[in-house]
């Protein structure tokens, strides 16, 4: 079955595992593709480099970490939102930083949501559930976005 994919862009393996565990609580972990930095995220979205032979559709939502090596989350955000084909993909900043400058900059670049990862895992699970439910199951993508099934 061709389900709607979630692209998780996260360099920290612990965070990847915890996010997958949180998604698993809501039976969404098998829909997740994980890339480890901004450059990989861009390759994935344009099906370039290591992803040139992949057949995946564009993701229903991108969960994007802010601080990453090579290319940070803000740069990925900028590139996606400046691309006519990609800009409709909802992007959720999922980050540790609650610094105002990051929040302001993200919204300036057109982020769809900005979520500060709570320290308590229970709260994190609740947040991920909200995000998964909203962006993957509830949100109706614009007509020119990737098909839903």
């Amino acid at each position, binding site marked *: 079955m061709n389900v709607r994919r979630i692209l998780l862009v996260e360099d920290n393996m612990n965070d990847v595992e915890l996010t997958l565990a949180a998604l698993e609580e809501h039976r969404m972990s098998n829909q997740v593709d994980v890339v480890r930095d901004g450059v990989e995220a861009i390759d994935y979205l344009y099906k370039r480099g290591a992803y040139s032979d992949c057949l995946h559709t564009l993701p229903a939502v991108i969960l994007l970490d802010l601080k990453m090596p090579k290319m940070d989350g803000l740069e990925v955000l900028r590139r996606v939102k400046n691309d006519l084909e990609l800009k409709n993909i909802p992007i959720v900043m999922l980050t540790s*930083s609650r610094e105002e400058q990051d929040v302001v900059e993200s919204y300036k670049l057109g982020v769809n949501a900005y979520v500060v*990862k709570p320290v308590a*895992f229970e709260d994190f699970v609740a947040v991920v559930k909200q995000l998964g439910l909203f962006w993957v199951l509830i949100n109706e993508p614009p007509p020119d976005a990737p098909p839903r099934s």
Partner: protein
Amino acid sequence: MTKRNEETRREVGERKRAEAALIESEERFRLLVEGVSDYGIYMLDPQGYVVSWNAGAKNLKGYQPEEIIGSHYSCFFTEEDIAAGVPMRDLEEAVRQGRLELEGWRVRKDGSRFWSSSLVTTLRDEEGCIRGFSKVTRDTTERKQAEQFRREFSSRLERRVAERTAQLEAANRELEAFSYTVSHDLRAPLRHIDGFVQLLNKRERERLDPTSARYLRIIGEAANKMGQLIDELLELSRTGRIDMRVHRVELNALLDEVRRELAPTMTNRKIRWEISKLPPVEGDSTLLKVVLINLLSNALKYTSPRREAYIGVGHRPGENGKVVIFVKDNGVGFNMKYVDKVFGVFQRLHRDEEFEGTGIGLATVRRIIHRHGGQVWAESEEGRGATFFFSIMMARAEG
């Protein structure tokens, strides 16, 4: 005849006496002028040649009267001034104005320079013809140097202030980078600790003995506590850094908002609120909300042992256009000998087991109120409640 001779003799005698008196007076005056040693006093003829020279002038410029009388006064000027025609221009100006105050570098006989302040007066006879000039000169080099020193000193001071400001700004940027790092990098490992503890808990739920389960709970709680500490420290540093946007703030509306947000902490509590109508104040509503959140959540926390909590918010007149707002409770209170500590960072008057907290809340309150130009203070009696006060500018009347 005899009578007329008599009169003539008397007139001649009087005139002689008058002349003698005049000569005596002139002589006294000459001696006086010559004797003045701190001021150079000399006369120039209409062309600028020196015709008289007192002791002060000798002291000041180093010339004996016989050396200088008959010389042109331009020899007192610097070469640059001579080349620029200053000596003759000064005299022409003195003729035009009658008297002229001058300042400038002059040259002594030995070639050394001094800063001179002088007054030139044009002397005219009864018909208005120019008879010459009198010149009174003073050496004000010391004053000039002092002034120059002061100017250099203040410019050096300004330079140093600019340097220090730059250093402070750099330190501030560093601090911001630091709190950014704290915000981002320090919270991540805490999240991992709590996350994996919870996963472990879930995985081993059936097999864990009670002690191991308790250990895991403590690890999780400790991680959360530290996360809370980091957040509140960041909040404290942010309240000192962010730009204030000062507007008219309706405290009652803000209180309603804060009470709604704190509602989850009030479940299963019996609370008697007494909130009076507060006057509008001048402030940053975001920061003042932080103040109210901290004061109300404190009141809620320390009244938790009471069967019925009482929390009152009221006001009373303050000084200089300010109003005093207070939050009063019937909680456990504190001993007034610790009153100096309640607003300090990390200062806590209760053990963690009694009341949870980080010891940053009231420090944040104080910092915010200070930034608003107000004061904070507290009154309490142990076991009988506490009242926290802050003063703040009242909003100007509208219209």
